[in-house]
């Protein structure tokens, strides 16, 4: 049955190249429009600087050690948070999946915690524990754990029953089952979870830095705003956006080689 779906002509999907080209054209168009609007003084330069000014500010920033230090601080804490999230989410998802009791007893807690935006906890956490790297990590992990956890639980639930029966008939060992069935089956869900979680993690990192002034892109942004250096503030926003794109882009880049067997990737290749 699934054969039909798999071999269907990929009408709705674009090849990666076409997607990138269209994306680039759209972005170029927007920047052009923005430049024209700035030059024509439709936009006040104190509110929105021209793209050329932003580019200039970015050039000046990129030769300072402060800037690269800030980028490093933000990127490294985000990466560390993702590792911590995986370390928490994998065993938790396995426990939830393995036991109906754990599922029922954690369901309420998770549904309760999930909608609390990580950002909303920042003032409270800082008040309680002060502005330390540990608190920053906690805030990031707390705010971006849920997509990962939810995806992992779904992934475990979606392992085809038939594959597990096949494994029983052919008497697979425990590790063989984990290595050959569980991990590959859950991988697509893991990558989706990772992509969503990493974006949220980056946002919370920057907002925390912004509010508390801990080193990172967020505090540079706060400083630029405070000093009224609007073009620099825009340059930093641009860098933040590019970082987000970079993170989710790296996860997407992993999907190609890791999920070559998955219907979505097969469609992409054909398209």
């Amino acid at each position, binding site marked *: 049955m699934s054969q039909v779906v798999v071999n269907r002509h990929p009408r709705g999907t674009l090849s990666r190249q076409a997607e990138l080209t269209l994306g680039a054209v759209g972005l170029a168009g927007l920047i052009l429009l923005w430049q024209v609007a700035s030059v024509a003084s439709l936009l006040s330069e104190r509110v929105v600087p021209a793209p050329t000014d932003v580019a200039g500010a970015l050039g000046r920033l990129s030769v300072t050690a402060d800037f690269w230090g800030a980028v490093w601080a933000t990127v490294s804490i985000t990466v560390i948070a993702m590792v911590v999230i995986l370390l928490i989410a994998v065993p938790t998802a396995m426990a939830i999946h393995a036991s109906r009791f754990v599922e029922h007893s954690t369901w309420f807690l998770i549904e309760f915690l999930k909608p609390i935006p990580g950002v909303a906890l920042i003032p409270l956490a800082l008040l309680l524990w002060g502005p330390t790297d540990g608190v920053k990590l906690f805030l990031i992990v707390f705010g971006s754990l849920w997509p990962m956890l939810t995806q992992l639980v779904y992934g475990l639930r979606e392992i085809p029953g038939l594959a597990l029966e*096949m494994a029983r008939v052919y008497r697979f060992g425990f590790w063989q089952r984990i290595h050959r069935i569980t991990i590959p089956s859950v991988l697509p869900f893991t990558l989706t979870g990772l992509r969503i979680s990493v974006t949220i993690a980056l946002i919370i990192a920057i907002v925390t830095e912004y509010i508390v002034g801990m080193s990172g892109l967020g505090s540079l942004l706060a400083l630029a705003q405070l000093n009224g250096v609007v073009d620099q503030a825009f340059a930093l926003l641009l860098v933040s956006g590019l970082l987000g794109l970079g993170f989710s882009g790296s996860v997407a880049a992993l999907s190609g080689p890791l999920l070559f*067997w998955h219907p979505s990737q097969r469609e992409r290749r054909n398209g």
Partner: protein
Amino acid sequence: MGAEHLLDLQDLGKTYSTGAVRARILEGVEFTVDRGEFVCVVGPSGAGKTTLLKCIAGLTAPTTGRTLFEGEKVTEPPAKLAVIFQDYSRSLLPWLTVAKNIELPLQKARFPARERPGIIAEALANVGLEGKGGVYPWEMSGGMQQRAAIARGLAYQPDVLLMDEPFAAVDAQTRIDLEDLVLGMSRRLGMTVLFVTHDIDEAVYMADRVVVLSGTPAAVARDITVDLPGERDQVQTKNLPRYGELRAEVFGLIQAAKRPAMQRTETVPARRMVP
């Protein structure tokens, strides 16, 4: 132990309980399969054929009775039993090549690593997939995928191959090819096969014996020895008068059981006709 039969089903019954609802699927199923036999179990869709096969394979525990495999009660899938599932696209792992899929069940103890390439090549040759080991399942047609699944079962060198409507999802021509492939293979290798199907023609054409499963809950309505010439041929065999008679007999048994429309959830089961 000196077990007489390779498979011996004794008073097998299965009731699924979902909350307060109890669905009686099988009751008092009894038949045997001897070494080298090709036995078809035929019954309409939803009769409980897959359930029966899972009980025999040790994938699910029967509610009553038991299956003896080589004289021993089955509780988990026995080492010398393989199952070919209907849904090949899920039973083959898409992230592994065909060769790797076949190799996975070959455990160290029974299959030393250096012997495996030979075993895999032989199994592939037996199903007409020479040289296809390096291909991924989704790069092949449905019929070829099911052949690969059969090759995996063969390489495992079981004493009995259980097949659950293995050709229900392929087109008619492929189905005919696969029927003859499995028949030829089982004759050549002296394999014991328990083949489950809802298709009366397929059952009569392939089997040495047809076990007709009917009723609600299902039981063995009749155990028919197929006295057709051993060499089967899609045209000649199906033109034999005897083929038509056997076919009509099976059809009649299945129809007869359908007439008294009974509910699965009834408390008192109607007695089945027992041969």
